[in-house]
């Protein structure tokens, strides 16, 4: 089923062949960009409806079910509503910065899509330092959040922006460390190489894929990556900066109409791109899990999309289950649990790679045992450290003299 797999690549080559020589570069760029800009906002639209319906089912109620069959045109109603809303800019607000904040957020989120391989030979750009590009572009997100919070001249927006930036910076380190573990294992920063290194399978007839998530350090790295990604895109249980019941919408409280929709869109697009990076790094990118014959009939981009969708569903499930973390709980978790685990994960990757040449009998089991022990013991110790409640002493009163 090679044709279905490469259908988009061949389509692009066809169209480029029809275009005269001087226009080939712009048209090629457009053809790479436009599908991304159509598919992922479309996925955003469906995800908003699916999220509301799935959350509803988790909470023993129906989600929206009036607009369209089973409510699946709700995104159109929401979109029309936000477009036709009045765009209110506070009088004291910094107009230029207020306008640019959603723009920069959206641009950063969209730029990050260019290095992710969506299928075989289906990446927009191949940069040698692709992972670094991805995180560099993520830095623009934090700046945009600050701009949004500051320009609104609203102390709650400012507070929300400060908390959001603190959260994003704190969780960027575990994110980078988790990605770094994979880079260490592969030896290249190029996402295409990383996906290629997860080819094949081992075990009886290849039933266990070679994906990094099935190694001890990969599993821990994946969990760290998922948690840090939820915190980066301000998603429950880390959505304190934008929670409706805490700080009304945090840093984008002064935005209405299309700008609010842009923030919303950029946030979800950021979620998708980080999940896409997680799939690339840990879940084998566009590889099928098993080398069986029917897995080849499903195209590589379909495998990528299904993995992406399953991670997004996992996030929706987490949102419906976990209560929101307080800001000090969040920060404690990032600095006292995830950072040490990330560093230990790096050490374990080193141990894993170092012990690879062992090939005496039972070497695999010993390798696994050593690596799992090296990861499980700190997990328990750090976890119990976090779970031990602070010693609240007897209450003391300080009266004014």
């Amino acid at each position, binding site marked *: 089923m090679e044709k279905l797999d490469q259908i988009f690549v061949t389509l692009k080559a066809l169209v480029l062949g029809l275009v005269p020589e001087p226009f080939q570069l712009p048209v090629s760029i457009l053809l790479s960009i436009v599908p991304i800009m159509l598919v992922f906002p479309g996925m955003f639209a469906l995800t908003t409806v699916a999220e509301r319906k*799935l959350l509803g089912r988790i909470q*023993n109620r129906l989600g929206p079910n009036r607009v369209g069959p089973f409510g699946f045109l709700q995104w159109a109603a929401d979109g029309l509503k936000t477009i036709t809303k009045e765009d209110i800019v506070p009088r004291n607000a910094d107009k230029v910065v207020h306008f640019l904040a959603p723009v920069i957020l959206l641009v950063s989120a969209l730029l990050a899509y260019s290095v992710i391989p969506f299928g075989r030979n289906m990446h927009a750009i191949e940069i040698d330092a692709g992972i670094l590009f991805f995180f560099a572009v993520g830095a623009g997100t934090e700046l945009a959040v600050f701009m949004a919070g500051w320009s609104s001249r609203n102390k709650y927006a400012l507070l929300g922006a400060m908390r959001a930036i603190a959260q994003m910076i704190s969780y960027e380190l575990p994110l980078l460390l988790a990605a770094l573990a994979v880079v260490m294992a592969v030896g290249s920063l190029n996402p295409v190489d990383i996906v290629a290194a997860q080819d094949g399978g081992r075990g009886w007839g290849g039933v266990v894929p070679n994906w990094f998530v099935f190694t001890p350090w990969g599993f821990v790295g994946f969990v760290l990556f998922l948690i840090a990604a939820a915190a980066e895109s301000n998603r429950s249980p880390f959505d304190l900066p934008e929670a409706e019941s805490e700080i009304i919408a945090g840093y984008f409280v002064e935005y209405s109409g299309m700008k609010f929709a842009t923030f919303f869109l950029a946030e979800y697009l950021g979620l998708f791109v980080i999940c896409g990076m997680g799939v690339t790094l840990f879940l084998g990118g566009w590889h099928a899990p098993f080398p069986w014959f029917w897995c080849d009939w499903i195209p590589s981009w379909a495998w990528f999309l299904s993995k992406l969708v399953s991670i997004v569903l996992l996030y929706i*499930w987490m949102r419906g289950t976990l209560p929101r973390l307080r800001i000090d709980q969040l920060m404690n978790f990032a600095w006292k649990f995830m950072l040490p685990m990330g560093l230990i994960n790096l050490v374990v990757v080193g141990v894993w790679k170092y012990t690879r040449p062992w090939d005496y009998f039972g070497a695999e089991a010993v390798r696994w045992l050593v690596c799992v022990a090296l990861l499980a013991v700190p997990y328990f110790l750090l*976890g119990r450290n976090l779970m031990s409640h602070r010693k609240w002493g007897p209450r003391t009163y300080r009266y004014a003299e």
Partner: protein
Amino acid sequence: MNLPGKGIATGMVQTAKNFLGSYVSKERMVTVQYPEERDKAHEAARSFPFLVFDQDPEAGLRCVACKICEKECPPQCIYIVMQRDENGKPTKQPETFDIDVSVCMSCQICVEVCPFEAIKMDTEYEHSEFDRFDGLLRGKDRLAKSNDYYHSIHPTEAAEVDERLDKERKAKEAADKAKAAKLAALANKAANAEKIAKDAAAAKGKGE
């Protein structure tokens, strides 16, 4: 054992059970899809008063226009005008009985003070009108509803009220009958006494 992460795992399992269970068992879903389905109100629900009539909406109306509810209503939303016949004598019927929906606060005081069980609380809650002022003034024709309707919305209460009214009516009938019998006995006695006096006068006249 106090595993870190155990709570999260238990929580996720529980929500997964909720999610899958919501497709399987219908009684998990508490959503009432409003215009198509409506929840039946509880028996003790109250929203707005109505007047009870026994068989006929005009003659059977229990209200006698005593105006006690108008006096007792805290926001003063009831307006009653008693009906008078051609001579100016009050009949025991209200000519106008208006309640303002926008003022009534459903406190049920009018129900509690009515001595004739004529005004009771309805459970209907869809009161929206298109006209903000006159449309919200409910008159006697809209307020009068039959006793059967009362039974259907507040069965226990209506049964109690009916029992009480029956008892009162029987007591009144018995009292009436006793009074009539007494009067009849008195009239008999008077008629007897008259007859005896007439007889005596006739005998006396004949003896001369």
